[in-house]
């Protein structure tokens, strides 16, 4: 059974149809890159999968580990192992990063019927993850994302992912706004987490992240649908030809 099966997904935002029949299958252990021009619906896909309000699914289905993912609340999806690394991580003044992460960690474990960790146990776990992610523990003591640089915010997303150990990680333009060093760090974090049990959906506008995290599959999302799929060479082709080439091969309105 596939981990994630998206079939003919249609979704609207503020009355405007953004996803127009998107289908995609993801198996455990796979890394899928979703590329596409601005406005194609890449971020909408991430938000629909993680359950954000304001995204109305009008047709189609999303089955995750045999369960109707769209019927779950965002926190239920998280407990089921779905993680969204935000394109724009939210600053939450007054909420300590470690406290927040432990609350999330324990909330998920509670739902899964696993033992919750006390603050000492959790801190031990966090320190191990920090080492792997090469992140300074100073981030732990600050409020969630407050005053973080763009790079720090993105690294904090990957750090959270490392602690929460999701089965399906959706990275929404995690590479955007990063300089090359930060990009490498983020990529290294993702590579560390790659495993046969875990799948990644990497939403990105540019090919450069894929130099460091080599995907198993590359899909082109245009006008709300996957119009082309291939291996990593597709990303290179896109880099060379631009998305204009995609538009020529798959004019809007034509069926895939």
């Amino acid at each position, binding site marked *: 059974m596939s981990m994630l099966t998206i079939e003919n997904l249609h979704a609207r935002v503020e009355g405007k149809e953004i996803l127009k029949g998107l289908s995609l299958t993801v198996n455990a252990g796979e890394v899928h890159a979703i590329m596409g021009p601005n406005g194609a619906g890449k971020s909408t896909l991430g938000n629909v999968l993680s359950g954000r309000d304001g995204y109305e699914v009008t047709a189609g289905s999303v089955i995750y580990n045999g369960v109707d993912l769209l019927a779950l609340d965002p926190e239920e999806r998280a407990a089921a192992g779905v993680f969204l690394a935000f394109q724009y991580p939210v600053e939450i003044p007054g*909420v300590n990063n470690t406290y927040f992460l432990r609350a*999330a960690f324990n909330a998920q474990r509670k739902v899964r019927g696993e033992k919750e960790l006390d603050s000492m146990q959790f801190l031990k776990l966090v320190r191990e993850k920090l080492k792997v992610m090469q992140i300074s523990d100073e981030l732990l003591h600050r409020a969630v994302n407050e005053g973080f640089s763009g790079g720090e915010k993105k690294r904090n997303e990957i750090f*959270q992912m490392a602690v929460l150990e999701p089965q399906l990680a959706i990275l929404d333009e995690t590479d955007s706004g990063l300089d090359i060093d930060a990009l490498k760090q983020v990529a290294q974090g993702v590579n560390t987490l790659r495993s046969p049990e875990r799948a990644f959906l990497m939403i990105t506008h540019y090919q450069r992240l894929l130099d460091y995290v080599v995907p198993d599959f590359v899909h082109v999302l245009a006008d709300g649908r996957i119009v082309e799929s291939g291996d990593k060479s597709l990303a290179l082709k896109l880099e060379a030809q631009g998305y204009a080439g995609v538009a020529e091969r798959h004019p809007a309105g034509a069926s895939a």
Partner: protein
Amino acid sequence: MNQPATLPLVTALLDAPLPPSGIDWLDAMRQENREAFAAGGLPDTRVEAWKYTALRALSQRRFAPGDAGAQTRAVDASTLALPGVDGPRLVFVNGEFRADLSAIDAPPAGLTLQPLSQALKGDAEPLRFALSRSASLGHARGAGDAFTHINAASAADGVVLRVAAHHKIAAPVHLVFIGAAADAAVAWHVRHIIELGEGAELSLVEQHIGSDESSHLATLVSDIDLREGAVLHHVLLQNATTTSTLIRQSRLRLHTKAHAMMHVLELGGALVRHDLQAELIGDDAQLDTRGVFMPHGRQHLDTQLAIRHQALNTRSSSNWRGVASDRARGVFRGAMVVAPGADGSDASLSNKNLLLSPNAEIDTKPELEIYADEVKAAHGATVGQLDERSLFYLRSRGIPLHEARALLTTAFCRAVLDDLPNEALREHLAELLIAQLPTH
């Protein structure tokens, strides 16, 4: 303002016998205040300062004048302790000092601490000036004077506290006011006179609690004078029961280089009104107020700040947060005046509010009047809901909606506790805030 004296509340208050004192000036003062109340009556919502707090329902109720059983009401003194508050303690039950529950036998050097009821039995003359200063401070006249008159006419107990010059009192003094279950609804009135001498320092924790088995109308008036260079940390924890009506007036005078810092938690009560009036009358005086009001159910919590800068280079900063849920109502008015001649003053005020339910309401009104030169002033107020993006962010990590709400609300409120130096007390207050959050 005028209304027939036939309102049950007014009748009941006027019918109450004045407390016997045997002191001519005090009896005369009480009589004057009673007459002033009879003439003025209760304010209605046409009075600007009472625009959002209607007394209609209250005015139809009757309260017995004091509780004859106040000295014997059962209170478990062991439940009164607060973390980080280990100094002398004065406990009042239904407005009367309870020696058996209090601990004031061995006050530290420089601290004089006495219930007003005892002070009046001795030489009352030193209290004459303070007790005669009954009506509101000049600039806030009309705001709650009815209750000030009632209080001046009726208060027979309270706290008389003095710190001698240059004495720094280390352990926080704890004042506890308990509305205990009585045979009927009772009205009680307390009056505090607090003075810090030159260079003196004091930390004061004032707590209001009670039993919800009977209802109370309490008026509390505090006069707090800080002489030159005195420093006061004042924490007010209002956690009365939802059968309580509390009308408080705090009046601060800050002399040269005096510094008062107040942290106020308005949590309990059915109808609670707090007029906090401060006059910065000495150069370089400084006032910092921080507060949270968190009405839920059908509570009505009204805070009225009136800060007047009257001297050179005086500073005030006020940071208040309101959180209203269910059908509750919060009211906040922050009025700052920089008087002529108070050049170089710095006045800032911020009041941010959260509405956690569509039926909750918060009315906030910052006001600023400047009549001096080279003044720095800032004020702002907002009313909003929890940020949807933040909520989603927390939920997307697995934190359930109600927990995410509680987390964000707590963070919102805690900001005003951050600069409370007493860490044990600060953590305790934060826990009380969390306990008050809606659980749904």
